């Protein structure tokens, strides 16, 4: 009952906050204080990953941390209780290598010239690099943690897909920067950071053909090695100079060497790319050359890993097993491939066998984790993981590669990766087995904050008319009339996609449909740092839209017309609107 009260309070607060947001004022009141701090999921199947699954068990979260887990445990009196019958609770999923949370298309200054994949590269732009001394594509001081933005839509979509945690790294260049472990929620971007830095990825992507060093794979490899040697030399020369600065020329300062030197000293993980077996072996050689295998631990991780089925035995035979991050974007025939194209047998075998790599790695005792690679929809990440199960991987191992193993690889298993007392309350709650395609993700907890997942709504009946096109929406906030534009695309089944643009910015429609003449579409915008749904519902009469905008439990009316037909419109574009509190429009608690 207390939870209902809490919700009422929340709603009252939300009203005030939203009002301010809609007004465009700079709100001074934060949302803190109103959020529940205690949750309990009661009577659910709990899969801790660190131990065997528990049937009909309870997990209690308090202040962002897992407080207790078990059969008969006390639930704090002020906890929001979720009845878990029919639900399965997993640790929050972990995407072990991505750039979710980072602004898209921010190439490193002087970073890699990303040409149209594989083809002849365009003439290099920006600064021309004439050798290693120009430090091409080298920005190891960049830190994912410092570049985060909440405006990345993938934060929400990943979270809706069950992912609570990612390791994100800056992209672009050969030493793009430092990776951080992030939890996918926070009022401010920096709140997402769980640990930084945890690793620095390297890539051997050449820059620009004949115009820009390095222009070849061998150039990139040689360059990386020269940087490594320079870093080592810099540390030793500096130390020697500090001991006795008189009579010797002072060693130069180099930002790259300073940052990498520090990283090496702190045993930070180096992420080395290797997808096919040639690259795998090359990565191992590099790891040995750079002395990253310390006998008792390895400061290197391979990413790519899709030809693991060919080299797992070899790598598994090493005393210290180098962990592998497996790219779940399995190789496949290009969509627009020449139908007459006859790929080589080796290519065909690779495409066929790639999903069996995780099973091979597991068999060889090599720790591995999954990452989304080029996958853009989170539900496809689980589908891809399932492919590896179909190719022989135990489902438990697949789950582990999405939870505890990545936490172990990045050395944060002391705080996350499994459902254990004291760990961060990152959970994903489903209505069935995670890898079952019919399973729906019901809710996600990130740092003990609850997020409800929704499947995009589907139209029930075929649409009447076509809403495709540009619309002008008009409504009145307590501050006066306001307009925004709507750019819609409607599929033949009535599914709506597109964007809305107001003076507050542009947002994409995350879910929408037209069913007969009833439409509904939802955008999600940050209000007070919290991603918040704004739902547009109403009627489409063939030429105009009429309905309500609902935000966190209150509602204003709006009307929409196509600017092209504005002249023909009978009345003015602005209609009266009013704001009203409506706590009965449920925000979605149980």
């Amino acid at each position, binding site marked *: 009952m207390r939870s209902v009260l809490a919700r009422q309070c929340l709603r009252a607060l939300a009203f005030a906050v939203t009002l301010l947001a809609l007004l465009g004022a700079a709100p001074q009141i934060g949302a803190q204080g109103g959020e529940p701090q205690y949750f309990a999921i009661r009577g659910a199947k709990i899969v801790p990953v660190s131990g065997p699954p528990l049937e009909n068990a309870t997990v209690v979260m308090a202040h962002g941390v897992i407080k207790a887990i078990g059969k008969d445990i006390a639930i704090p009196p002020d906890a929001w209780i979720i009845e878990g019958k029919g639900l399965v609770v997993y640790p929050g999923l972990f995407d072990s290598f991505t750039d979710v949370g980072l602004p898209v298309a921010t190439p490193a200054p002087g970073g890699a010239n990303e040409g149209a994949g594989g083809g*002849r590269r365009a*003439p*290099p732009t920006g600064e021309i690099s*004439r050798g*290693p001394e120009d430090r091409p594509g080298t920005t190891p001081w960049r830190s994912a943690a410092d570049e985060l933005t909440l405006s990345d839509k993938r934060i929400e979509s990943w979270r809706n897909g069950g992912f609570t945690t990612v390791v994100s790294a800056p992209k672009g260049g050969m030493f793009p920067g430092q990776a951080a472990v992030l939890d996918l929620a926070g009022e401010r971007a920096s709140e997402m950071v769980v640990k930084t830095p945890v690793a620095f990825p390297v890539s051997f992507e*050449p820059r620009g*053909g*004949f115009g820009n*060093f*390095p*222009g*070849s*794979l*061998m*150039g990139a490899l*040689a360059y990386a*090695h*020269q940087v490594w*040697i320079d870093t080592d030399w810099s540390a030793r*020369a500096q130390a*020697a100079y500090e*001991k006795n600065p008189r009579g*010797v020329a002072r*060693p130069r300062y180099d930002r790259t060497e300073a940052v990498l030197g520090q990283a090496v000293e702190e045993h930070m993980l180096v992420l080395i790319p290797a*997808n*096919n*077996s*040639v*690259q795998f*072996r*090359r990565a191992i*050689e590099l790891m040995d050359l750079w002395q990253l295998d310390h006998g008792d631990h390895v400061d290197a991780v391979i990413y790519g890993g*899709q*030809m693991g089925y*060919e080299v797992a035995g070899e790598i598994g035979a090493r005393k210290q097993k180098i962990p592998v991050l497996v*790219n779940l974007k*399995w*190789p*496949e*025939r290009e*969509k627009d491939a020449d139908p007459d194209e006859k*790929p*080589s*047998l*080796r290519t*065909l*075998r*690779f*495409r*066929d066998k790639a999903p069996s790599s995780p099973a091979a790695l597991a068999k060889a005792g090599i720790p591995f984790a999954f990452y989304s*690679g*080029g*996958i*853009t*929809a989170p*539900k*496809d990440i689980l589908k891809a993981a399932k492919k590896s199960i179909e190719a022989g991987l135990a489902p438990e191992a697949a789950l582990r590669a999405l939870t505890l193993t990545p936490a172990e690889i990045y050395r944060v298993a002391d705080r996350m990766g499994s459902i254990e007392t004291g760990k961060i309350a990152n959970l994903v709650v489903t209505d069935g087995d995670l890898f079952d395609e019919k399973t729906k993700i019901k809710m996600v907890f990130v740092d003990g904050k609850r997020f409800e997942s929704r499947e995009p709504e*589907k139209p029930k009946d075929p649409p009447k008319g076509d809403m495709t096109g540009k619309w002008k929406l008009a409504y009145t906030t307590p501050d006066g009339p306001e307009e925004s534009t709507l750019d819609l695309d409607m599929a033949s*089944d009535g*599914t709506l996609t597109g964007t809305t643009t107001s003076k507050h910015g542009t947002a994409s429609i995350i879910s929408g449909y037209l069913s007969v003449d009833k439409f509904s579409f939802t955008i999600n915008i940050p209000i007070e740092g919290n991603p918040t749904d704004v739902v547009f519902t109403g009627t489409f009469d063939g030429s105009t839209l009429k309905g309500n905008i609902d935000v966190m439990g209150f509602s204003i009316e709006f009307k929409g017309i196509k600017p092209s037909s504005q002249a023909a419109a009978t009345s003015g574009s602005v209609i009266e609107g009013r704001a009203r509190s409506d706590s009965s429009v449920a925000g979605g608690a149980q």
Partner: protein
Amino acid sequence: MRIASFEILKPWRTAVVCLLCLFALPCLTPAAAPPDAPPVILIQNATILTVSHGTIEHGSILIKDGKIAEVGTSIKAPKDAQVFDAAGQFVIPGIIDCHSHIAVDGSVNEGSVSVSSIVNIADVLNPDDIDIYRDLAGGVTVANVLHGSANSIGGQTVVIKLRWGLPASKLPFEGAVPGIKFALGENPKRSNFSIPGATPRYPTTRMGVEETIRTAFAEARDYKKTWDDYDKRVSGGDKNAIPPRRDLRLDPLVEVLEGKRYVHAHCYREDEILMLLRVAKEFGFKVRTLQHVLEGYKVADEIAAAGTGASTFSDWWAYKVEAYDAIPYNAAIMTRRGVIVSVNSDDAEEATHLNQEAAKTMKYGGLTHEEALKLVTLNPAIQLGIDKRVGSIDVGKDADLVVYNHDPLSAYAVVQETLIDGRVYFDRKRDISEREAREKEKKALMEKEKKAEEKKKAEEKKPGAAGEGGKKAGARPDEKKPEEKNPGDKPKAPQTVAVSGGAR
């Protein structure tokens, strides 16, 4: 080579066992398991072209532990020996291609700089390159894998054995002196290449090429001195000496100065050939081989006097201005003037018939049968400093052998088997017999893919199931060759001419 029952009294059974053994040897699909080394092999009844000491009719070669243990006419097969009856067939030492660009991952040129000695072909060997297998099918067992010719001083190079199926680390020829590519003339001065919008790279003249090499070696000499001074200070008890920074670009040039690394210089014109020989003399190093060296016949005496080898084409010319004065007599003339000459491919396809390329020198210049054969076996071995191990059929050398069905210098000769270190890496009969199975597997896999795609499409078409994923092209294995691999130095079909086709 037919497998014969050595002991006539044990008839077909032995033959079948041997047959099975042989068939279990090489797996000819890419990245397949390497063939096992049979402990002892006896090839008998063959016409053996030893290259070093004439021809042996009805001869036998005994192979033990991958080495040639005996060569003669009356060798008794030891127990457990696999016996191959090579009646009517010809055995020669494995062909050595002194100028190759196969088995390289990515571009063969680090074309961004005029001195790219920092890069090393050995770092990017790709053992899955199908050209390795194709070269094997042409009888090639050793290749000098060179960096391209985009730079006055190019990258470090490596001599490999074509051990198809083994990982990259097993390809380099053990103990072979590493090399470095130099290039003179039109390619390094970028006469025939330009990238729209890009600043032209220095040098743009032959004078500039010379200056670039000279400057680089002056730098290397200073760098070497810095290290020598440091070593002296340390050995003199100076504990405060800060070590010089290791420079991966200058290290190989110091090795050249110290005679620990061979210079393989791409060149065409007589003037630039003489220029390089002068510069090398000035800095006190030797040019190990001149590559292409199409005007070598004009300065053959000077090349011979410098103790430099020449590795040329049989009869390619006029594909660019600096190749106008080439003649097919080049190899023969240089040979007659005392130069160690080899004929190379510079091209994966050409490499599959180097025997024929060598044969042309019999017509153009009148080399003897053995002299011609030497151009692709013993001579390149000498040039690469590996003649103690390979290049001829002599006791103690590696069992790198090629079996032809005809005289290898005949246009009808087809390679039947290619052995490296006594292992069969190419077997023509086996290849043919496996083609059907491979085609079948390929078809089945393509069918499987097609079905999966159709299934996926059907799922996506289900109303409301508008999946976001799978819009982008999937990851691809790195088997597609970059365009830079096209030889820019040689004539070829017009459709493959690329604007900046990697200079060779």
